[in-house]
């Protein structure tokens, strides 16, 4: 990227080099946002609605495009065309800026997410730290939205969000520690490189503590992303729509865009940290083909966790604010600390890792999946004979 711009600057000496680089970066950023991030967030909204619908014995959006696939475009267009209502009593500058900050927070996280061996916008050597830091920008936006709306429900939502995200930063950071310990780097590319394509080489199967860490990370990430069961800031049945109550049209949509986009960031992070990221078997020497395979690998892995987040959302009720705090400080933080210590001990015992432990952990996870499948079969058998579809 930078080389290309440098070359461009060398070819056009009459234009100031800095200006060209900045312009080029902006153009590239816009390209990434419009071609990848926005569609991903939009399509996620459609997938979420379909997944929800199926879980709830409904069909979901199925009219716009094949299977309703273009629903997200229609919704986006509708919201763009809607009036941008700014209530009279709001703190206008803050009210206007807040949605952008939220979106900026999640878009900036994409900078350090590796989509392939060479597909990364910037391979920062503090990549994972950068992501946890920059996603906290979201809380500033939400707090601003809540405060500036001049609405008590919004303010409660904003404050809830601030409490929640700031508290959950701690266990989130702590659950990343074991991964960093094992891979010995903070760079997201480095962490991916420390794993292999085969499941038993993934970090999550490195030792039992990392497996727990992985679960905790997912829980904390859900809380960071304001997802059920931690969706208190916009708890519909309590705070109407929380911080987004006064927003309408595109500004309101931006909040949701950030939510769905964040979902993908969560999935990509889980995949990178614990599930081998873009690692694929080296089946070809063609770098382009390999890059494509890597991209699809991490995309699918990430999307699997996006799906799990939707599925969890359709299952669980919402937690209360004091329980949220109790969960964080009484359960997640101590357990995350324990995991860090445990991983450290494990690494002292087995500096090279242990293949037996890895295989055993894979077996445990497979066993859980088997039990789960049995349970699903039981539920299906119990509900058999249900005359669905009867008009």
């Amino acid at each position: 990227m930078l080389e290309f711009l440098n070359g461009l600057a060398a070819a056009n000496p009459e234009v100031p080099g800095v200006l060209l680089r900045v312009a080029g970066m902006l153009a590239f950023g816009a390209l990434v946002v419009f071609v990848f991030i926005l569609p991903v967030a939009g399509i996620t909204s459609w997938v979420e609605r379909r997944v929800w619908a199926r879980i709830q014995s409904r069909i979901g959006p199925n009219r716009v495009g094949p299977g309703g696939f273009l629903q997200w475009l229609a919704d986006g267009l509708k919201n763009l065309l809607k009036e941008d209502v700014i209530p009279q009593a709001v703190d206008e500058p803050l009210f206007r800026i807040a949605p952008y900050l939220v979106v900026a927070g999640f878009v900036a996280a994409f900078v350090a997410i590796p989509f392939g061996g060479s597909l990364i916008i910037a391979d920062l050597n503090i990549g994972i730290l950068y992501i946890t830091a920059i996603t906290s920008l979201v809380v500033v936006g939400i707090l601003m939205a809540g405060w500036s709306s001049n609405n008590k429900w919004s303010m409660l939502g904003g404050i809830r969000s601030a409490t929640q995200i700031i508290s959950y930063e701690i266990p989130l950071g702590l659950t990343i520690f074991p991964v960093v310990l094992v891979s010995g780097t903070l760079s997201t590319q480095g962490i991916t490189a420390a794993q292999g394509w085969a499941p038993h080489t993934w970090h999550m199967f490195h030792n039992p503590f990392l497996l727990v860490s992985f679960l905790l990370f997912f829980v904390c990430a859900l809380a960071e992303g304001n997802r059920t069961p931690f969706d208190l800031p916009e708890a519909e049945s309590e705070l109407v729509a929380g911080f987004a109550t006064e927003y309408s049209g595109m500004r309101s949509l931006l909040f949701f865009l950030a939510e769905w986009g964040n979902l993908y960031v969560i999935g990509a992070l889980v995949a990178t940290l614990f599930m081998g990221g873009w690692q694929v078997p080296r089946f070809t020497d063609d770098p382009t083909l390999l890059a494509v395979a890597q991209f699809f690998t991490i995309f699918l892995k990430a999307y699997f966790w996006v799906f799990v987040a939707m599925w969890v959302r359709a299952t669980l009720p919402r937690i209360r604010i004091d329980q949220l705090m109790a969960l964080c400080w009484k359960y997640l933080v101590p357990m995350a600390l324990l995991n860090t210590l445990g991983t450290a001990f494990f690494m002292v015992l087995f500096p090279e890792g242990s293949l037996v432990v890895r295989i055993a952990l894979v077996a445990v996870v497979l066993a859980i999946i088997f039990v789960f499948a049995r349970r699903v079969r039981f539920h299906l058998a119990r509900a058999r004979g249900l005359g669905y579809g009867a008009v």
Partner: protein
Amino acid sequence: MREYVANVVQAATSIFDGLSVTFSHFFREPYTIQYPDRMPIPVQDTLPYRYRGFLDVDLEICTGCLACQRACPIDCILIETRKDKETKSMLIETFDIDLAKCMYCGLCTEPCPTGSIHHTREFEGADFSLESMVRRFIKEPVTAYKPKKKGEDDPVVAPILERGKRYIAEFADPKDDAPAAAGKGG
């Protein structure tokens, strides 16, 4: 400590179970009826016989007895009759039903001796004004129907009367000892 572990275990197992219930729904058929445009048959045909939709009046068999007007608790029916001096028969001049006011309780259909006023299975009545919800059944004054002792022989009226009789047979009839047209249940 014990409680701590128990809490974690209970949370994990119950959430696991909940997730399995929701996951099993991916293998079940959705129940949505895609009203109105993607239905295999028109929605009206899926409604049961007793469905209380819009009121309709068969003027051919209306006796002009005003029983329905009296039975209506909210006065949404207006019937005006007049004795025709020349033919000595009764003329019905007005038969209006305000469907915007009607609460579809069905009390008017019960006292009707011929089943002239009856509920249909139509229910789609969205319109732009309340005025248009008033059904005015009479354009020109109509002669009221007079039940014939030997039974109806007019080929036009007979099937309508038969339909009306079948309709009122649905209502529980206190005069009969046996339950009305419907089956014996159980």
